[in-house]
């Protein structure tokens, strides 16, 4: 029997779409984290332990795309867009656009990108670990299981209501945030 054909991204010429795709994904991640920090209990607990006014960025070297977020006075994460008003406390830097594309197209997990020396971490390690957990949690909730499994070391056992409700609440919040901002 013939094996079902699997989409192999490396065979496609994705050069021209990499930059706009990464720009879009950074925005989705920023808005997604913003929404998730409003509705998901686990993410809220992580954000609670970040210092007030904490700022972090995710960027592609040498000069973008970039996404900046800040902890608000209400204890939530707020997406600030592409500009940072000051040097962020924690910076996650991809060495090249292609490496960011590998991660955001779920060909390489975040932890694997760190292990492969493609993703640099600058700033307090403890805070960075909290952020990594927030990112993982958000991905597990909003991505379809078969995609999230590729991106994460372990797909968490989310109860069905958690996945459906959590996911859809993030989505609806994401939609509102996108429209209202």
């Amino acid at each position, binding site marked *: 029997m013939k094996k079902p054909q699997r989409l192999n991204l490396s065979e496609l010429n994705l050069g021209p779409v990499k930059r706009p795709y990464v720009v879009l994904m950074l925005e989705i991640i920023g808005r997604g984290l913003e929404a998730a920090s409003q509705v998901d209990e686990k993410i809220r607990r992580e954000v609670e332990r970040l210092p007030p006014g904490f700022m972090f960025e995710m960027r592609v070297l040498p000069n973008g795309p970039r996404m900046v977020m800040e902890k608000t006075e209400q204890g939530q994460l707020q997406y600030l867009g592409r500009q940072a008003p000051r040097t962020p406390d924690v910076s996650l830097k991809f060495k090249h656009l292609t490496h960011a594309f590998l991660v955001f197209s779920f060909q390489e997990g975040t*932890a694997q990108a760190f*292990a492969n020396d493609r993703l*640099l971490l600058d700033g307090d*390690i403890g805070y960075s670990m909290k952020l990594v957990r927030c990112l993982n949690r958000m991905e597990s909730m909003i991505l379809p299981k078969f995609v999230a499994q590729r991106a994460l070391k372990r797909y968490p056992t989310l109860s069905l209501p958690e996945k459906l409700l959590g996911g859809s609440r993030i989505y609806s919040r994401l939609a509102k945030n996108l429209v209202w901002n």
Partner: protein
Amino acid sequence: MTKSYYEFFCPVKIVAGHAALEHIPYELSTLAASRPMIITDKGVRAAGLLEHVQGAFAEGDMEVVEIFDDVPPDSSTTVVETIAELYRERGCDSLIAVGGGSVIDTSKGVNILVSENASRLADFSGVGVLKKPLKPFFVIPTTAGTGSEVTLVAVVNDPVKGVKLPFTSYFLLPNAAILDPRMTLTLPAHITAMTAMDAMTHAVEAFTCMAKNPISDAYAVSAIGKISSNLIPVLNKPDDEAGRLELAQASTMAGIAFSNSMVGLVHSLGHSLGALCHLPHGLCMNLFLPYVLEYNLPQRREAIGELLLPLAGAEIYARTPAAQRADAAISTIRGLRDELHRRCQLPRTLAETGKVNREQLPKLAEMALDDGSILFNPVEVDLDDALAILERAW
């Protein structure tokens, strides 16, 4: 499993073996240095180890310009800044660190200040802040464990802010690591055992965690073999020069492996335990290693199984069916741990340390999750998992 991409870097010259210390003057001269400063601690001085180093300078025209021998076990930016001042006053042009982890990290800090001609160490904290090579810098380890002589990081306490400042740069790597059996010959049995288990853990984690790669694998396997076959013989015969040198080399090789492949959950848990309960790092490693390997077994059965060869030798490896090798490797490590307990009372469990409270376990689990090395552990770890491992290690 092949790795899709990896990097490997180690520019440290290894000067190892009989009469290695006597190579230092020549090695300094190749770097155009002639006025070295030695940085060490009181313990090294009291053990008479400095005499070997000074003896190496006795013939010839180079002299040690200054010796700072008061690095505390928990060094700080203040100490670093004091030493840098002394270095400048005395017109030194190179550094020789003689000691363990704290002395080596302190010296890395001093090298930053004297090379950048600066006075505040905190200004250079972070990743890749340094942009140019530093002064000639040699390391003579006096324990066989940390591997700091081949790592590109240093951690120094900032007493003002009360935080640990990390420094990461290729320029922090020493120019040479000098491994001379005389320098570890008088190490007491329990320290020999603890530090060897730290090196063992570096190699095992480098080999089993997410950043493993073929080149660091070679160093890791070789280090594990050397520790397995030399640790007990050295404890039997502490003045065994050849065995001491094997352990020193193993420690450096394990250091090269993990500075390229990183470490995992044993270190995450160990860093937390060390910080909260003030237990020596090597002891923490010895305690958690078997439990973490059991935890990682489902993801890493094959890699752990391969370690049976350097751990137990060719004969046992060949006799053990492939499917049982990983379990056999873990029980070999347990066996070594029990033997070290019998000989030097090295604790096997958290309870045996006598310094840990059962109520502290949740706090330890929480701290471990915030440790950077957890990122490279092959199996994801959440709070419940970390707590379960701590309970098993109780």
